[in-house]
């Protein structure tokens, strides 16, 4: 076993000295203080970015909610012509899109960015500037997508944008492009947040917080961020295919040219179904966090909840075809997905039973958050049960695309996501603002929303069974749906009134109201250690944690933290510092320095946003210009803010603990971030591989005649070039470690043309075979795989040259070479991608006898 320091036997803290405490607090304050005045937008602290994220998500929620009320107004009476059909299509499309992509997923990131570091007793997340970048991307992309409705060009093909309606430019206009590019852009911010949160949970736990002591919220965040990493990339791959067809007429979804519209449904729902759980789990995590507080005891079956979160995360990837039961797939395929859809109810049920058990074995304190939590469980269980119904193929054939499904999905999402979130808002409001919310308004808003919700959505089960299809613009009085629809509309407005009460309660200025006392609800988790009034540094000193509910089970912890008796109580070097620990046992590994306020991330996000927005309008020259701007800002940000060589190799962290100030390879969070990002990238690539095999199974003649298959010799030569480029980078890492800087720089620079030569050989092979991406799906697929490689090579070239420049500037040195190590990791993935593409282009056709 490894030699281990016993954290519980650290030397005692130095006796309290008021002057020292004051001086330390002043230095901490100087370092963590947010910039004054308007410059506050350059802040990157998790508490600021988290709050902005939260408010922006809620703004989009209100926007999408107003769209919902417009939908309900239109459907209130038969033969209504309040809104035109075209506007109605935009209303429901944008309602679904905004609720899913601009509210439900971002709010998870918002809450996690806001409270996760505090629950972990950390000062911030490991990449605060990345969170800020993600936030600005989200804001720009969201405003762009939502703003389109004011110009009458909002997407109108339904929130899942089925092809060929969305791929054929005769049927769908600019709206589809706005949807595709706007959301791809927002997906960037989701993946950025996922990377941030995974590394945060794995590497930024306080010393001693072993896996068995980690709070449930952290487990959920870890699981959900992991799911984002595997669920979002297939959609990005799908977006890429669809946009290539829309913009450049590549043949992916057009049946006449060997395409298949069903491919889009697969790619969309491989994302779409896990997404439901990506939305649901973090909200249920809020209940799992607050329930022990109000029950005044630890959660019953802590590990069963971990089981349930991990189990749901996996099983949720086996459900996607249950959205496609009516597309004519073989029944045996449908039944696999039906079985998995039933199976997922098992772990989902387990966590609900754990909650109920916790409430049964204790006397639960009545409070507004618990009211919302209770309402959430009631509604969610109801929605879950209708879910088990529609998971059965024969029933689904009857209910598919009817209002029954609308009712089901709103019961699961509002019960599973929205109500727990409102519970969380009431619970953490005192943590964020240090003021208490009005209980009276809270109770009012709950009952209005609970009643309004059921009034609106319960009747929809009947309207659905009576045959009302979803998304219809209007209906006839003879259809017999009029009364039920009117009831739903009234319910929707009651619900909205409830939300208005909640919004007033949240936004009410509470300037003169007294501050709440510390640890308002008497909770056991670390975020409540925050001082009142709040300080920008997150936590005064980072404690040693050896229990699941530290504030309950570690006596005088708050006092010790306040007196600066734990780790990193000071900021002598004027740097923002975190402790990075190991994954299993949270042993302290090193002190990480993170970036402070900056405008670079905003510049970077604005440029990237412009790239996506301009591409929508096919303004390619401007797109390119902003693309260069984006690269410029990002390189500037990386050059000045990452992998800096510390002024000394280690520092004293307090309590006899001396830690290094630099880490590289798999001990540094940066390495993990690259690893996780590239896992996501590989998943997107797997989406393309899936598409390739999908065509192969779905089309009898996917492979063209032998002379149109790219020639093996050029393909092989290309592979050699690409692999050589990778080996050169690996060699450069080794040589730099041995101190041969010149050789390393030479290899890094040399690997760029070698890689591109390899790609050139592939292009030549495809060109010689006469492959035309606008002619056939096979041709388009081959070119897409080559294009994918090309995009990665461009990125690779930038990074190779960047690291070479860092070596020349002596920022990346034989001793401090994190940059090169991260680059090498990137190229490992690149080499793997190259090998798989080669197998698809050269080996697989040969095995199938086509070449």
């Amino acid at each position: 076993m490894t030699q281990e320091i016993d954290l519980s036997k650290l030397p005692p803290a130095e006796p309290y000295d008021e002057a020292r405490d004051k001086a330390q607090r002043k230095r901490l304050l100087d370092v963590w203080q947010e910039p004054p005045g308007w410059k506050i937008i350059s802040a990157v602290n998790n508490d600021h970015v988290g709050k902005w994220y939260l408010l922006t998500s809620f703004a989009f929620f209100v926007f999408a909610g107003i769209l919902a009320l417009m939908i309900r107004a239109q459907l209130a009476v038969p033969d209504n012509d309040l809104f035109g059909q075209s506007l109605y299509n935009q209303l429901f499309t944008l309602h679904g899109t905004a609720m899913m992509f601009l509210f439900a997923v971002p709010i998870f990131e918002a809450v996690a960015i806001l409270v996760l570091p505090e629950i972990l007793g950390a000062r911030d997340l490991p990449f605060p500037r990345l969170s800020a970048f993600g936030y600005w991307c989200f804001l720009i992309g969201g405003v762009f997508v939502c703003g389109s409705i004011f110009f009458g060009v909002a997407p109108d093909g339904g929130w899942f944008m089925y092809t060929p309606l969305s791929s054929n430019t005769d049927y769908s206009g600019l709206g589809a492009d706005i949807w595709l590019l706007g959301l791809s852009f927002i997906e960037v911010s989701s993946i950025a947040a996922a990377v941030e949160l995974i590394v945060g949970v794995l590497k930024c736990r306080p010393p001693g917080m072993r896996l068995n002591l980690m709070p449930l919220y952290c487990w959920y965040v870890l699981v959900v961020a992991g799911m984002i990493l595997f669920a979002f990339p297939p959609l990005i791959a799908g977006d890429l295919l669809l946009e290539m067809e829309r913009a450049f007429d590549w043949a992916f979804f057009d049946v006449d040219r060997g395409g298949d519209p069903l491919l889009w449904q697969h790619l969309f729902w491989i994302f779409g179904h896990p997404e439901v759980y990506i939305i649901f789990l973090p909200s249920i995590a809020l209940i799992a966090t607050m329930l022990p507080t109000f029950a005044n005891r630890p959660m019953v079956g802590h590990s069963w909840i971990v089981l349930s979160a991990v189990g749901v995360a996996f099983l949720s990837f086996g459900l996607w075809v249950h959205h496609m039961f009516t597309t004519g797939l073989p029944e045996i395929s449908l039944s696999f997905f039906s079985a998995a859809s039933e199976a997922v109810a098992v772990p989902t049920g387990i966590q609900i039973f754990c909650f109920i058990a916790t409430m049964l074995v204790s006397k639960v304190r009545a409070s507004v958050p618990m009211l919302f939590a209770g309402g959430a469980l009631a509604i969610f269980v109801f929605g879950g049960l209708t879910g088990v119904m529609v998971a059965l193929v024969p029933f689904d054939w009857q209910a598919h695309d009817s209002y029954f499904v609308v009712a089901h999905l709103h019961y699961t999402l509002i019960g599973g996501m929205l109500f727990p979130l409102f519970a969380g808002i009431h619970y953490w409001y005192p943590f964020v603002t240090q003021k208490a919310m009005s209980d009276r308004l809270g109770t009012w808003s709950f009952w209005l929303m609970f009643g309004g919700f059921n009034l609106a959505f319960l009747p929809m089960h009947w309207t659905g069974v009576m045959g009302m299809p979803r998304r219809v613009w209007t209906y006839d009085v003879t259809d017999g749906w009029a009364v039920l629809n009117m009831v739903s509309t009234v319910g929707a407005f009651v619900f909205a009134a409830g939300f208005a009460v909640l919004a007033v309660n949240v936004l009410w200025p509470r300037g003169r109201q007294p501050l709440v006392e510390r640890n308002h609800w008497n909770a056991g988790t670390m975020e409540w250690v925050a001082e009142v009034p709040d300080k920008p540094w997150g936590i005064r000193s980072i404690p040693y944690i050896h229990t699941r509910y530290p504030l309950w089970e570690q006596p005088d912890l708050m006092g010790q933290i306040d007196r600066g008796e734990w780790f990193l109580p000071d900021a002598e070097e004027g740097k923002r510092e975190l402790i990075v620990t190991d994954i299993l046992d949270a042993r302290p590994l090193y002190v990480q320095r993170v970036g402070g306020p900056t405008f670079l991330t905003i510049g970077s996000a604005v440029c990237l946003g412009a790239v996506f927005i301009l591409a929508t309008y096919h303004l390619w020259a401007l797109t390119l210009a902003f693309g260069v701007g984006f690269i410029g800002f990002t390189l500037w940000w990386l050059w000045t803010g990452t992998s800096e060589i510390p002024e000394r190799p280690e520092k004293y962290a307090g309590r006899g603990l001396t830690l290094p100030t630099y880490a590289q390879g798999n001990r540094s969070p940066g390495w993990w971030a690259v690893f996780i990002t590239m896992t996501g990238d590989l998943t997107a690539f797997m989406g393309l591989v899936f598409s390739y095999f999908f065509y192969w199974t779905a089309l009898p003649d996917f492979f063209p005649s032998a002379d149109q298959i790219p020639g093996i010799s050029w393909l092989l030569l290309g592979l050699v070039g690409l692999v050589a480029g990778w080996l050169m980078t690996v060699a450069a890492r080794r040589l730099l470690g041995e101190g041969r800087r010149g050789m390393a720089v030479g290899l890094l620079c040399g690997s760029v043309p070698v890689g591109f030569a390899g790609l050139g050989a592939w292009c030549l092979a495809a060109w010689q075979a006469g492959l035309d991406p606008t002619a056939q799906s096979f041709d388009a697929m081959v070119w897409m795989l080559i294009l994918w490689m090309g995009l990665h090579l461009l990125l690779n070239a930038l990074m190779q040259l960047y690291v070479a420049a860092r070596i020349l500037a002596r920022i990346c040195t034989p001793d401090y070479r994190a940059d090169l190590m991260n680059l090498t990791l990137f190229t490992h993935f690149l080499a793997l991608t190259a090998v798989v593409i080669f197998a698809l282009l050269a080996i697989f056709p040969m095995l199938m006898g086509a070449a």
Partner: protein
Amino acid sequence: MTRESDKQPGGYGPPGDAPRLIGQGSVWIMVAAPTIWALHFVASYTFAATWCAKAGPSLAEPRWIIAMMGVICVALIGWLALLAVRRYGGVFVIFEEITESSERARDRFIGHVSLLLCILSAVAIVFTALPGFFFSTC
């Protein structure tokens, strides 16, 4: 070549924080069982889809292949469960209270959760394999 900066601070951490495989002291055993479920699921789906597209409507022959895949995967999971019990000290308890702060407790916790996930994954695999026995054609 190992340089000074690669070394761990004296005695604070394990040598490198690399993800260990499913030997003791790793988190990978937790995801191993559900991953087997996922692979089994993808294999069953791909196999059935390819069979129905390329071979034909009768499911009499693939039935036994689906069954075999199920049996192999459940056996693999059984082996993982054994590992979770023997090597990690995982136990099957309802009221879990593994809150001690020690390496052994962390191992027991991982073993316990892995054991639960093994059970869940095995059940889910049986769920997936069942339709193979009810359908005689695609």
